[in-house]
């Protein structure tokens, strides 16, 4: 997958601001995720496992999800801007976060405790829904945040010096 993505450029597009847009999308996508956690009782369970209050868990969780959103936008780069399939890529990312975070890391840091029953289902669904919302929101948040073409095209690195060959360390001085 990495090689496939790289064929299209890991760059998220020269006018995009992926970290800001990703963080914003990650934070906004937390809303349905928190809702699901509340409905399934998973938030209270997670709070018990982590040893914080409900509000404390949300206060920790939202910035973490914002950061995760920024990482997603940077990592997926240009494909993350796809309004048609963004939800799918985001959902896959949410699944990976769930498998890495809720399944692996959380039990490790909490002495082997893990959510079970409906709470475990709630944690799973909340992360998958968060990912889908992140991926679906990101392309639409990128647009108003992106740099104007006029400004971006004036950068020196879009100019004629681009014609120089990439000689690396053998570039003549």
């Amino acid at each position, binding site marked *: *997958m990495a090689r*496939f*993505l790289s064929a*299209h*450029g890991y*760059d998220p*597009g*020269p*006018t*995009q601001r992926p970290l800001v847009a990703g963080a914003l999308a990650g934070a906004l996508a937390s809303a349905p995720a928190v809702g699901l956690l509340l409905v399934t*009782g998973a938030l*209270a*369970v997670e709070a*018990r*496992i982590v040893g914080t209050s409900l509000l404390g868990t949300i206060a920790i969780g939202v910035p973490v999800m914002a950061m995760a959103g920024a990482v997603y936008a940077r990592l997926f780069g*240009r*494909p993350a*801007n*796809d*309004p*048609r*399939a963004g939800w*799918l*890529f985001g*959902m*896959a990312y949410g699944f990976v976060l769930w*498998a890495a975070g809720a*399944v692996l890391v959380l*039990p490790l840091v909490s002495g*082997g*405790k*893990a*959510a*079970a*029953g*409906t*709470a*475990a*289902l709630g944690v*799973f669904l909340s992360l998958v829904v968060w990912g889908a919302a992140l991926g679906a929101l990101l*392309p639409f948040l*990128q*647009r*108003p945040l*992106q740099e*104007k*073409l*006029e400004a*971006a*095209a*004036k*950068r020196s690195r*879009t*100019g*004629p010096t*681009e*014609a*120089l*060959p*990439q000689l690396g360390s053998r570039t003549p001085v």
Partner: protein
Amino acid sequence: MIRVVAFRKAAVAGAAGALAWEGAFRIAKLAGFEGFDLVRSLGTLAFPDGPWPAWWGLGLAAHVAVGISWALMYAYFFWARFEWKPPLQGLAFSVVPAVLALAVMLPQLRLMHLPQPIAQLTLDLVLPQLSIMEIAGLLGSHAIFGLTIGALYTRPVGYRPDRPPALVCRPTRRRAGRGSPSVRQPGSGFMFATGIECSYPTTDHGRWRRDELAGTDHYSRWAEDFCCARDIGVTHLRYGPPLHLIFTAPGQYSWEIIDEAMADLEAHGPEPIVDLCHFGLPNWLGDFQNREVPQALAEYAGAFAARYQWVRFYTPVNEMYVCARMSALDGRWNEQRTDEPSFVTAVFNMAEASAAMTDAILVRRPDAVFVNSESSEFYQPCCPDPEIQSRASFENERRFLPLDLIFAHEVGERMLGYLREHGREDDYRRFLGRQVPRRTILGVDYYEWNERLVAPNGEIRALGELFGWYVIANQYFERYGRTMMHTETNRSDAADAPRWLWRQWHNVQLLRNAGVPLVGFTWYSLTDQIDWATALQRPDGKVDPVGLFDLNRDPRAVGLSFKHLIAMHRDEPEYRQCAALAQVLG
């Protein structure tokens, strides 16, 4: 966008895969097989004690939803990665969900079925003991799923020629901040151009139609595409309406497909250079071996010029040499022949079509300008072997043949013998008597594969940029002495595209400084293209990242560089008023 995916096809494949899994499992269960019941496990999460229709219905719905998601992942990331039979590709892909099911989902489903909210993890919970039957059942179910999606998800781009999509180009919502209002401004400034990739040949011996306008979503996003072109600052747009969809029968045209798009271009620009025949023909015309092609295309060109009288720039038949070669010598498109007589027939049919179309347009628009685009080719012999030298020399003559015909230029002795051998000397001599319109521009396209090496075994291989556009284009200028335009270039490595753009531009500048009347420069195309790595032969949906914008219409670095280039030069006196173009237009 990383790949063009047929969403509906993938969703159907995913749902069918999930249903096939469930069907096979129920049959096996009736036969006494005791495997892991995934649908039951999913359904009883919500209805632990509910009646079977409740848990089965919900479980199956969840199972189908997951199946669709996996099929979409397959379509985006796995499909066509290997040159295997489609069901085998699906089977190989099914290893991924199978491993995740065994290693992650199964233990987690067990946790989700526990009555308490918090569990202390034990080895038994994390690594549940599964019987051989259960493991075999799960692997077998995934294999059924994989085989099904693999068998059903094929050919994500293109369509059967007899089943074209119902299309009307409707205005799309313009993107915020894009497409500042502009007015088309015909003038005699240097032509900074791009193009909308529009190839539409048939493949698979006429059983499949490639349509790049459909694949790149231009039919539904044309307004946005035109805005993107304006944002870059191009003055001209090479634009090829879909001949195969518009010209439905003799005397019958579906103009509604492009009416609104053409009206938008007329009002707001950029100035279109209309490409009337781009590598394909309508179904009813068959292929380029058909003797009716010139007359039919002339009728189409005349009708087009009558309907859109404001259009002044035309490319009657795009890249005739490439089209004839791919269709009749290399066996890739349309008639898919591989013999010299078919090649000669295709060349003459296209050249006659081009000439007849030109005449038909001139009747409606006497001041029309013709941009006859052709791929600039060069063949380098690898070694002093006389056979190799002879082959290269012949190919270096053959590359000029279509242009020689439409520009009424004499061919060399060897080419004359070749035409005589194929019984076309009289036809050739008729072309020599042709009056070439004064307002004709020779378009010369150039890509990194246009310079070729004739290898020791006679094979022709792409050589990369050996002499460069300056040298090759100069050979074309010396032969025809016509006003010229660089009508296509791009680079398949997106990261290297800005370098390529500037280097091509410097070639253009050098040729102009050398006194060649050069009136335009084109980055082709506006957006990324699809499947050119296989010359459109395989409908894989793989994106070629060559555009000024990607298929999400997000700018690429080369888009910014082209904007930079245009802004840097358009107001310079020699570009603002291009004397050579003014002479052609006047």
